[in-house]
């Protein structure tokens, strides 16, 4: 036990050290010195993973809050807080990652005053700003309670239904707009991934990935904080996840067929077959856990459920990385530099540390159950 803790602590320290070094290089010598980016591959790991995947995995936040506060699915209430916390931290990390990736980050504020509504990036910028604010307010009662600021806490809670609705709409726009970013590349993006439906595909995969992330994170925190897994809740999530993966896969294949590219997926041998192979890997990662999640035996076993969640998170990550890397000709020879990886790992490590810190000091995992039997619609929790 002791040794394992030490190992993790040292690993985290090593990652932080590497990340700090990479940060210094990035901000003193520019992107070229720190990354493997080029004019042919202007977006790499920081956009493909930190931004596209970070935002997607935060989708658990809007999904769960919508289920609880709009659809009144009271059963899911115990996981609202961790889901909101994950989403909030996720968005904060996305913003930090953006500051690394932008070449002239000091001009980022201009997106708020110099409007170009034709640009998807403009939409993305607004969604990031607004939804992070929504998440901050949704999360704030935990902080206010801790500080004993009753009034502020009550005020934030009273707004939870409209906030949730705003969060749903902003998230929907944001998740889909990440897909829309690639619509301008009809000639550059591989046909297995380019689709006019990209915004919808990104939305469905984000909901599935976000739910998978909640399962994954519940499993992790059950282990880390010695809590029992809310199995009956997570089992429901696994079911919902399957539905969304099903819709995603249906849309994906229907679209491939409609565009006449279903056969492109068969090009798995010989030259230029990497995209097709990555396509099938992605498919397998989506289909297998979704199929297994149909069986209640798999859903009801904590270990198996956790495994399903992990695989689905993996499928989601691969889909986003495929769109941002494999699908571009230049992306097939791109591999992130160690400094890009170090920064990404550092951000993830900081996110995990912040989550632990919040769990230790704020009532992330308690509260709702106590008063569940009373009149739940009157007592509104964030």
């Amino acid at each position, binding site marked *: 036990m002791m040794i394992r803790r030490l190992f993790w602590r040292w690993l985290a320290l090593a990652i932080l050290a590497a990340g700090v070094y990479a940060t210094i290089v990035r*901000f*003193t*010598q*520019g*992107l*070229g*010195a720190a990354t493997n*980016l*080029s*004019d*042919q591959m*202007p*977006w790499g790991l920081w956009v493909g993973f930190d931004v596209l995947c970070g935002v997607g995995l935060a989708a658990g936040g809007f999904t769960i809050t*919508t289920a609880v*506060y*709009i*659809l*009144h699915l*009271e059963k899911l209430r115990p996981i609202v807080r961790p889901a909101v916390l994950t989403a909030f931290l996720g968005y904060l990390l996305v913003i930090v990652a953006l500051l690394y*990736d*932008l*070449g*002239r*980050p000091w*001009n*980022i504020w*201009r*997106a708020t005053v*110099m*409007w*170009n*509504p*034709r*640009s*998807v*990036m*403009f*939409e*993305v*910028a607004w969604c990031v700003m607004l939804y992070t604010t929504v998440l901050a307010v949704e999360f704030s009662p935990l902080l206010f309670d801790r500080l004993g600021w009753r009034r502020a806490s009550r005020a934030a809670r009273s707004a939870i*239904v409209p906030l949730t*609705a705003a969060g*749903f*709409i902003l998230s*929907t*726009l944001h998740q*889909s707009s990440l897909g*829309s*970013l690639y*619509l*301008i*590349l*009809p*000639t*550059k993006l591989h046909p297995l991934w380019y689709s*006019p439906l990209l*915004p919808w595909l990104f939305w469905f995969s984000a909901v599935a990935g976000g739910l998978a992330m909640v399962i994954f994170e519940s499993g992790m925190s059950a282990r880390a904080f010695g809590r029992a897994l809310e199995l009956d809740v997570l089992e429901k999530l696994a079911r919902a996840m399957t539905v969304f993966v099903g819709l995603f896969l249906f849309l994906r294949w229907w679209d491939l067929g409609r565009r006449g590219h279903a056969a492109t997926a068969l090009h798995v041998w010989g030259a230029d077959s990497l995209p097709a192979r990555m396509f099938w890997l992605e498919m397998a990662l989506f289909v297998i856990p979704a199929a297994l999640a149909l069986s209640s035996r798999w859903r009801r076993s904590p270990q198996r459920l956790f495994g399903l969640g992990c695989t689905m998170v993996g499928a989601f990550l691969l889909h986003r990385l495929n769109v941002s890397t494999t699908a571009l000709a230049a992306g097939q020879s791109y591999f992130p530099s160690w400094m890009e990886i170090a920064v990404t790992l550092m951000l993830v490590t900081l996110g995990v540390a912040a989550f632990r810190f919040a769990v230790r000091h704020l009532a992330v995992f308690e509260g709702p159950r106590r008063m569940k039997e009373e*009149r*739940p*619609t009157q007592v509104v929790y964030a």
Partner: protein
Amino acid sequence: MFALLIDVTRCVGCGACVAACCEANGLPLEEGADLGPYHYTVVRKVRTRRGEVYYRLLCMHCLDPACASVCPIGALKKRPDGPVTYNASICMGCRYCVQACPFEVPRYEWNSRAPKLGKCSFCAERLQHGQVTACAEACPTGATLCGERNELLKVARERIAAEPGKYLPKIYGEREVGGTSVLYISHVPFRTLGLPEHLPLEPLPGYTGRALSQIPPLVGSAGIVLAGLWWLTDRKAEVARAERETRSGGRR
């Protein structure tokens, strides 16, 4: 609207345009450089069945440019007289323009702390003062002509019609991605010049526009549906509660 007509058959590879461009823009002249943040135009040589062919590359100054449409803050702009210009002081360096350009034109100062984009400006200032671009002025053979786009299209058509055996029957840039302000005519396939073939004839911003135009109705209907669902499920919860209470016999 101004345009450039590049007649590949007339290019002799002297590099006068490159030198003139460097001088006009205060850029260092370098032998054999690729397009880059300090090289707005290049002359290249390619061996083909019809012998060695020289040609030049530069920003195409699309009529509805992908780069300008994707820039979140409008640092890139299409001017009504033709040039697509770049304003470094407001650029935030997201490189969406680099990603979006179908001709791989914009180049980025990767090794700078305050990186800028580099690309041909169509000598926007010179055009404003009634001059032709520096490269067109320098070209000794008329392989680069500067003028009104419609005029140049006419010239191109005339040249093709006059020597149909020599030219391919196509003006590259007339309709590609909705048309560009730089036009090419050539005796070798445009593909061998590194100009992408099979580009859609529709301007690329339209692809994004279709998705973006769905947003307002989507937001509206999502709001209505959410409100409806909230009301319905809220009502259901209340009814269930009331039933529970009557069943347990107690009323408050």
